[in-house]
């Protein structure tokens, strides 16, 4: 206990973790540059689960965990769609979620972009043909970019976001 109290006075250092991934860092630094240019220094993402198997959400959460920590690159996951530039849709759109999904999208300010993440959201999943789903994200939104995978890895998702900024730049939307 005494040690714990005394630790207040110790010099604070940032631990140097041995898990640096050069490829990921390179993508991130590129993305940071693009986010600065295209989105005015910060890219706010609202995640919408419209019927996934939850593995894609886990990978999105992992992006904010210490190994990846994408806030360094100007990316934040925001709580409200009203604060979001990009809507990330995961999973096929179920009938039960369709209304809530649409309302979430409608609550976002313009200009707004939709990225489908994961095979189900992109239309390559096994749910096609089920009575309970409307279909992939395309059925409800104009999807700007698809990131496939079951689920895509955090690195794949980051690469996808870089592709999105490049696409927006090319189309001169912003």
């Amino acid at each position, binding site marked *: 206990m005494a040690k*714990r109290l005394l630790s207040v006075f110790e010099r604070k250092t940032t631990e140097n*973790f041995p*898990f640096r991934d050069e490829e990921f860092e390179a993508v991130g630094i590129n993305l940071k540059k693009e986010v600065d240019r295209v989105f005015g220094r910060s890219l706010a993402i609202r*995640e*919408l*689960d*419209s*019927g*996934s*198997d*939850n*593995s*894609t*959400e*886990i*990978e*999105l*959460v*992992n992006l904010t*965990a*210490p*190994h990846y920590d994408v806030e360094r690159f100007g990316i934040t*996951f925001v*709580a*409200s*769609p009203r604060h979001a530039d990009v809507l990330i849709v995961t*999973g*096929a759109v*179920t*009938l*039960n*979620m*369709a*209304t*809530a*999904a649409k*309302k*979430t999208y409608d609550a976002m300010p313009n200009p707004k972009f939709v990225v489908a993440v994961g095979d189900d959201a992109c239309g390559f*999943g*096994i*749910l096609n*043909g*089920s*009575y*309970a*789903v409307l279909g992939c994200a395309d059925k409800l939104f104009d999807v700007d970019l698809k990131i496939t995978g*079951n*689920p895509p*890895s955090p690195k794949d998702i980051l690469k996808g976001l870089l592709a999105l900024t490049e696409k927006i730049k090319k189309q001169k939307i912003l």
Partner: protein
Amino acid sequence: MKLNDELTKLFGKQLEITEGVNNELYLAISENEVHSKIIRLYENNFELVVLFCAENFTAQVFTLFYAFEKAGFSEILVLQCPLEGKSASSMATIFPSACWYEREVTDGFGIEFSGSFDKRRLFLHETYPADFHPLLKSFKNGKIETRPATAEEYPFKIVEGEGVYQIPVGPVHAGIIEPGHFRFSVIGETIFNLEVRMFYKHRGLEKLAEGMTPMECVKIAETISGDETAANAVAFCRAVEKISGIKVPRRALQLRTVFLELERIYSYLGDLGGMIVDVAYPAGASPFLILREEIFRQNEALTGSRFMKGAVSVGGLSRDVPEQALRNLSTFLVAFSKHLGSAEGIDSTFFSLVDRFETTGKVKPEILIPLHVTGPVARASGKTTDTRIDHPYGLYREMNLKVRTLQNEDVLSRFSLKAEEILESIKIIQYMIGSLVSGEVAVTYQFKDGYALSLVESARGQNVHWVNVKNGLIDRYKVRTASFCNWQAIEHAVLGNIVPDFPLINKSMNLSYAGTDL
């Protein structure tokens, strides 16, 4: 003692018991004796594991199945009750856990339960037309005509009185979380009532499975809940293997055990980290999240998928794992235990953290059996339950594991229990790697028709799969995950707590939305 003898003692000698292929006993009973039989079981400490319906199983159109377990017996009792028509009597006043099951059967098959206290629709929300019952064989899977979701409003339980107000939360939550609706009735900051409304993610998996070959259906099992991929794949494959009499090679069984325990470890690490994040102490959570990511990478090295998707198949594994990856895993786990121990040690003595964890979100012992609360949530409230030990499968039967329980019922209890169980899982993995035999990881086989029940302890608790194969194709696939039971427990666990503690309690119980909604 055998369950058979116990049943003879309860019901007398003339019992028509059929032995299932997987240590389950099917007892055929008629509609008018089901109520009295279930009361008898209730009085003798049997616990309702699952209730489901199948069409064209017997000469009658519909058959209801009530599965029960009793502490001390490894067999499962399944009451098999053919229905004369489209109605049955409700068991929800005896076993409250029957309530959701009965509503599920009503939605799926259109069977009405007389005497039930809750007749609202369950997984079919307002957008589904009236008289639509997707699990009927007469309904061919495909697009349906929906109606506007605003057609009627779902009647939540209304709590009225001075100072009582409601907080509706969801289905879309603030954060990267799955969708579900929580309706709080609150007095001041204290939760007076909570009603959980799930099934926003209902994807129709059970219907989708029908008509598939068992091989194709593994994918459906894996997609039930992404972070229970291995548990559900193993549960499904075991059912099919039992039906067809397939003997899985020992190496495959050993590696399956490694996968199951790795899944438990990464799931628990997420919970430990998540609980700490939810009391606003991210620095304390980081060590757990770092270890969790390392496990995902180990999974990928072993199976090619961070969630071990596609690793398990009927008859064994899809492919063998690289030797080097196994050796690396073994070395990694030695360092892992040390990191975990120090992280847990630091956090569990951190005042503000313990202050938030202690006495929060108590899961009281009196709801454990009525709601069939399962997994670490039940064990942290003192219930001796673990499917790996109660109904051993795979290699768990030779492992001589002990059920760990803690008595404090609160968030801290669940935190400590999960940290302890991770260390146990590491031991199991190391033992499996140490004793790994060489040889094939899959066998060739012929599919046979039949049905079987299969139980697996996922990271969240007991998952139940019932598979019926007809003419080589899946005729009915019933899944009940641990979350389906534990979601009902959270309605009780939050009572008397303050609203800001809800996310913490939720995280400590780690409930899957996808696994409940199917």
